């Protein structure tokens, strides 16, 4: 009797488990993982949430799990996930970090998907960056141009006009750098640069001056072009800015933006994302956005969407549907209206955006200027070695500043080291 009961209970348990196991896949929602550093960014985060809501409405039973990973550790997180064979289905990467994943063959070529849906990418800003070994491996989500925001009150108090050239910019920055309480420490700065956010950000900050001096790291063929008189001038300018005390030292991007937004800094060269911070700052009413005095404006590709090459086909179709949704003219418009970003699509209707974001025409203007001049933060030919290259440039620039080295010598050293990195 006992044995019979035991057998019966065992059979019942087995049957129950099998039933639950068999039913569960059909009952469960399909979940697509989407990791990003922009989940709670002012404006842009809301835009992603709106795209996810629309996608889920169009695809009942499919959920997108939108998770935040900090930007500072984002590349590490994605590298770990890909290495562990657990990449998110929707891949969001910075435009200077997707190359390693593409080179390893982990990103799905998107040309067949674009072709199948008859999507024409002509005129899509920065899309060329997404081509890797002749294949389109991502869709450019954001291509931006730098603007200059200035604090009108601080410039007026110092009696200086809005700068139009590098020399005027330096003069205005010096005039607005002040020790307000007389303790021997500057409390108000002319401008500000982030030098604590890692090599990539360091390079971006110094590029403003390098490009204005007519220099760049490589030419269009990928040859290293650092040891030039223009680069020496660019490095000299960077050294001047960092040694003259017009910028606070060793600050993170958020600290610099906060200082500016709270009226402790007169001018800031930055991308469209500065607006989110200045809108929350105490000096909001004094801040004006104009085209930067350094030309052409620094600009470039920012971030991309892609999909892993080894996920099931049905998931690929869903991921593609999501990417396609973000590319529609409606969402490209809301990318501007909600996020204050410059949408890369040439078909995006951005009329009237200036009613909510007054400086939007300046953003568009600098984006177009940077795009026409082919400006990008990632130098051609060094895409795979960008981290190593940017670290080398940062270290040599720091050495120049700390040890007061001649920029001409530094340019020679950088040239040799960059050629060695490229191999």
């Amino acid at each position, binding site marked *: 009797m006992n044995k019979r009961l035991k057998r019966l209970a065992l059979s019942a348990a087995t049957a129950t488990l099998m039933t639950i196991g068999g039913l569960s896949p059909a009952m469960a929602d399909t979940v697509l993982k989407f990791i990003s550093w922009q989940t709670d960014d002012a404006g842009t985060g809301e835009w992603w949430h709106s795209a996810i809501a629309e996608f889920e409405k169009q695809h009942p039973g499919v959920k997108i799990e939108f998770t935040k990973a900090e930007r500072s550790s984002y590349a590490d997180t994605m590298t770990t996930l890909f*290495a562990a*064979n657990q990449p998110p289905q929707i891949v969001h990467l910075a435009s200077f970090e997707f190359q390693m994943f593409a080179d390893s063959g982990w990103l799905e070529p998107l040309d067949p998907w674009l072709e199948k849906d008859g999507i024409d990418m002509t005129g899509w800003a920065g899309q060329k960056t997404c081509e890797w070994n002749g294949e389109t491996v991502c869709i450019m989500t954001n291509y931006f141009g730098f603007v200059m925001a200035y604090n009108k009150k601080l410039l007026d108090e110092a009696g200086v006009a809005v700068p139009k050239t590098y020399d005027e910019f330096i003069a205005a920055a010096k005039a607005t750098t002040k020790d307000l309480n007389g303790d021997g*420490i500057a409390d108000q700065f002319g401008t500000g640069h982030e030098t604590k956010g890692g090599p990539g950000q360091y390079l971006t900050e110094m590029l403003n001056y390098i490009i204005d001096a007519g220099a760049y790291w490589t030419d269009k063929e990928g040859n290293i072009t650092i040891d030039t008189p223009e680069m020496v001038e660019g490095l000299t300018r960077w050294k001047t800015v960092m040694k003259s005390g017009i910028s606070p030292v060793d600050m993170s991007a958020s600290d610099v933006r906060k200082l500016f937004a709270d009226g402790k800094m007169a001018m800031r060269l930055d991308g469209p994302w500065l607006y989110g911070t200045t809108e929350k700052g105490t000096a909001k009413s004094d801040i004006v956005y104009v085209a930067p005095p350094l030309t052409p404006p620094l600009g470039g590709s920012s971030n991309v969407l892609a999909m892993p090459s080894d996920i099931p086909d049905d998931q690929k179709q869903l991921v593609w549907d999501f990417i396609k949704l973000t590319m529609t003219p409606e969402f490209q418009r809301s990318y501007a209206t909600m996020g204050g970003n410059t949408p890369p699509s040439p078909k995006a209707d951005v009329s009237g955006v200036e009613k909510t974001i007054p400086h939007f025409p300046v953003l568009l203007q600098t984006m177009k200027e940077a795009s026409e001049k082919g400006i990008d933060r990632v130098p051609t030919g060094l895409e795979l070695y960008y981290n190593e290259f940017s670290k080398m440039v940062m270290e040599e620039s*720091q050495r120049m500043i700390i040890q007061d080295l001649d920029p001409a010598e530094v340019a020679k050293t950088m040239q040799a080291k960059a050629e060695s990195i490229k191999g």
Partner: protein
Amino acid sequence: MTDTVQAGRRKFFDLARPSRQHLLGYILIAPAVLMVAAIIVWPLILAIDLSFQQVKIPRLGGASRPFSLSNYTWLFSSQEFWLACWVTLKLVVVVTAGSVAVGLSTALLVNNRFKGRTAARLGMALPWAVPEIIAVVIFAWMFDTSFGLFGWLAIQLGFADQMIPWVSSSTAAFWAVAITMVWKGFPFVSIMCLAGLQSIPSDYYAAAKVDGASVFQRFRWITMPLLMPVLGVTLVLTLLWVFRDFSIIKVLTGGGPLRSTQTLSIMTYDQAFQYHNFGRAAAVGVLTLVICIIASLLMLGRRSKSIY
């Protein structure tokens, strides 16, 4: 017959029998051993295997690359590696010495009877209780070049005429890291030393006093020899902590400027996640492990037995 077999089986599995008790011990520790093997030994084997492959980003379950010594060849000929070794050695010596000096002093202090001793003991242990990352962020604010407390104090006290570039000067950055690590590390030494001090019988001190021994003599001839067993182990543990610590340096200086604070652990991270050279990163990691084992053996091995 069947009954005899079953009785035999019961006898064999009777773990209560004195001759079978060792089996029970093995069975009880088996889950822990398996867990340790899974989370320590297996990754260690993977890392050693990876260090002998020329691989950029590995993939779990992916095909192995051919055996190669290139990562080690690169490492030994790389100036960066030797610089990282030198920085690590400097930091280990400075932080371990600093932690022991401050830790032992505070332990001796709070071992005495005085009013507010409980509060002093609590205050002494507080840095240990603060999560490392929070402590480092607070220190990063205090070391801030533009608005930091330490720079302001240096000006106010007349030690400097301008703010000290803590993070953009090679020497200042090294000391900023070392000070933060000593602050975070000394409570452990204090607690261990305090436990050691309390185990020394008070009769020894009373007898020494009767014999006319001074405070210094009592410390030199009673406290130190009897504290040595505890201090030796504490020294090794502190040394290993400094060797492997990553978050303090990463948050405070990122290994810069000019690699003046780039230790072996920061170099491992940079090679893996910045340059995507996992093979080289594994080689640095394996060598770090070897150095740690040698250092521990030297301190706890035969040569140092005399201190116990």
